[in-house]
């Protein structure tokens, strides 16, 4: 009896917690994020109804069918019902995943647009570093022997390669708004993770692999990037920012950084 009530109260409280959206996603900053939120809500409605009905009927059976000293109904089962709920569950669950496939393929299987800006990420315990090709549009060769965080060369850009002279490195990732980005991600030690909540994208950065990630950010602003794969004792302090700039500001920033390199 008490359990029936309690289960109902907990169910309603849970529904309220999700329906009230007191703690929720930050606002998305691109098309993908809006599609993501839309499908999240679809899944929330499907599961919410199943959750509500299952918990309510569990509470109901406890409330309604307490022992009164009599005999229970003798029912061994019902094949029709078994088939109905098996097929029903299969259609709902697999339907949900098929509906979401587009969200996944949009991030991971889309062609890189020709005008995409390529940026490299090199993650390490416990920092992110980003590299831009600079004015020549070419990344300089790298050599792990030349990696030196102290000398401002976290990528180990080869001193002898002229293409590397104008490579810009930064601990935050700056991107022009509305432009497709191809982020080539590498780690030099353990697995890290690049996660931007407002992009609704998360991807592990794995040593020994170069993992491409496409995204586009449409709304200027600064967004936090928390490392989201346990990488050691400083994991909770490993952070960066995604800084989305109006395209003209971005060009100016890149040019200024170039100037600084030339003056060195």
């Amino acid at each position, binding site marked *: 009896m008490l*359990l029936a009530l*309690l*289960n109902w109260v*907990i169910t309603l409280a849970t529904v309220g917690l999700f329906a009230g959206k007191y*703690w929720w*996603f*930050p606002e998305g900053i691109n098309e993908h994020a809006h599609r*993501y939120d839309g499908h*999240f809500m679809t*899944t929330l409605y*499907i599961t919410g109804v199943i959750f509500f009905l*299952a*918990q309510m009927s*569990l509470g109901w*059976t*406890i409330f309604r*069918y307490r022992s*009164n000293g009599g*005999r*229970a109904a*003798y*029912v*061994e*089962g019902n094949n029709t019902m078994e088939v109905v*709920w098996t097929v029903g*569950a299969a259609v709902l*669950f*697999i339907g949900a*995943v098929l509906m*979401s496939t587009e*969200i*996944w393929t949009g*991030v991971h299987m889309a062609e890189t647009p020709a005008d995409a800006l390529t940026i490299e990420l090199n993650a*390490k315990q416990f920092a992110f570093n980003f590299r831009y090709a600079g004015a020549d549009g070419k990344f300089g060769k790298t050599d*792990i022997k030349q*990696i030196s965080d102290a000398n401002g060369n976290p990528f180990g850009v080869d001193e002898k390669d002229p293409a590397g002279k104008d490579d810009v490195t930064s601990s935050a990732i700056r991107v022009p708004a509305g432009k497709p980005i191809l982020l080539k991600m590498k780690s*030099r*030690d*353990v*697995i890290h*993770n690049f*996660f931007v909540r407002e992009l609704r*994208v*998360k991807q*592990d950065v*794995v040593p*020994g*692999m170069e993992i491409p990630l496409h995204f586009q950010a449409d709304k200027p602003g600064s967004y*936090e990037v*928390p*490392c*989201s*794969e*346990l*990488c*050691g*004792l*400083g*994991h*909770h302090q490993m952070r960066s920012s995604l800084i989305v700039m109006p395209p003209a500001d971005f060009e100016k920033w890149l040019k200024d950084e170039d100037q600084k390199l030339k003056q060195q």
Partner: protein
Amino acid sequence: MASHATHVHTPPSGFIRKYIFSMDHKVIGIQYYFLALFSVFVGMTLSVLMRFHMVYPDAKVGFFETLWPTGAPGGVMTPELYLSLMTMHGTIMVFFVLTTAPQGGFGNYFLPIQIGAEDMAFPFLNMLSFWTTFVALMVLMAAFFVQGGAPLGGWTAYAPLSALGEIAGPGQGKGMNLWIISIALFCGASLMGAINFISTLIDLRVPGMTLMRMPLTCWAWFVTAILSLLGFAVLLAAGVLLLMDRMVGTSFFLPAGLVVNDQILNHKGGSPLLWQHLFWFFGHPEVYIAILPGMGLASNILSVFARKTIFGYRAMVYAILGIGFLGFVVWGHHMFISGMNPYTAIAFSVMTMAIGVPSAIKTFNWIGTLWGAQIRLTTAMLFALGFVSLFVSGGISGIFLGQPGLDLYLHDTYFVVGHFHMIMGVAAIFGMFAGTFFWFPKASGRMMNETLGKIHFYATFIGVYAIFTPMHVLGIIGNPRRYADYKEFEFMGPAMSVHTFMTYAAIFTAAVQIIFVINLIWSMMKGAKAPDNPWEATSLEWSIPSPPPFDNFGGKHLTVHHGPYEYGVPGKAKDYVMQIDPE
């Protein structure tokens, strides 16, 4: 079905052979149970310390320094100590609680009795399996006391962090070696146990105990044993490879070009993703190893106290088998964002959704069982109903996480932490509590206190929902897992009130577990004498004395005439028919 005469043995008289190095499946079952009980209190204490640190990362607590002089200098817990508590919490709970109690504890004690056997098929192997588990636990605990302390890489031990040694952080040196050795021993023990369970169930059923007359607990233990056999074998191999990467310089999980802490390493050719594949090939079946016995127990207890036959017995059996089979083809859903080929994610996600179907079937059948029932709300029944409630709540969030599209954001957030704690953590533990209250009279010959039991149930039920439901909304904020504190991130500001609430809920829930311990100990010594069949249940353990004699059936050769859940059968004098009843 083999005859009974094949392995008759008499009870040993000495204390050591009777209670310590015992080959009696009942004693071994109780040993496993107490090993898990010890472990669950250690694991729970660690979790309370973690919750405390997350909310009060700068608090000075004198006894932290007493416990961990290097991990908490000045009484302030370091992030690395937090991570080692987390790693040990996960490892202890998954291996030494969720894997040992439902299978090694209850399964050992009751599987032979429920099928009419006098013992397990291989009693010596059974003893060896328990004591190997015991040594594994001691080795794991030792990790707290070696230089550098316990490992900090999480229970999943992802390479390269786990493969690099001390250079990757404190605890990743000696502590990590002990961790791997402990897990390898545990794998060995589980393999021995699995072989024993499978052989016993196939060979030692009494006449009339056909497969479809077995209680659902037996089906669950049987399929769990098969999962253990296939899963732990792979984890054992993976553990050995990891140890070789660390100790003899191989490169199974270490690629070329690593620069760790400014040192260039000489490894080449390995793959960090290989570890994840091997680990989760074990790791996913492991969650079913943890939960299947709970499902079996809940089904069994629901039917007994609903005074009603199980709704759709065959569907339940097929669902257990379906979960067992599909459990081996869904491991990739732990790796959607790992960098594996994105096409495989789609295949794994469809399989993952498919495994939701048998889980849903079970839930519907449980509610079908309760519909039109005559429910007796004993403490065991409350915990079984609580299991169903938590199973639904914990399972439903899997529908989000199983979709790679949605996992793109939710992966490695507190949404995941909430999901698996609810379903494989507390739902499984509710199964164990249900089993304890249900079988305690049989094993001890005394009843547990129902009033204390009910207070404990309600407090725990409210407590676990209060801890784990808010985790889901934290995940929606984007709260990453395995963070020692959240001071660096602005977006976590509004979430801290939720964390504080959860910490108090965790302290409350941990504290009320004392009621259970008091009840257990008090009932063992002073509980009312238990009749042979206090719950008017039908399966074989209820037709023998409480506690059972050494050879379980007092030399009698039983024949089974009925299914396991004949409650409320029309035309019978009583509302239940014992399985051995010739009528």
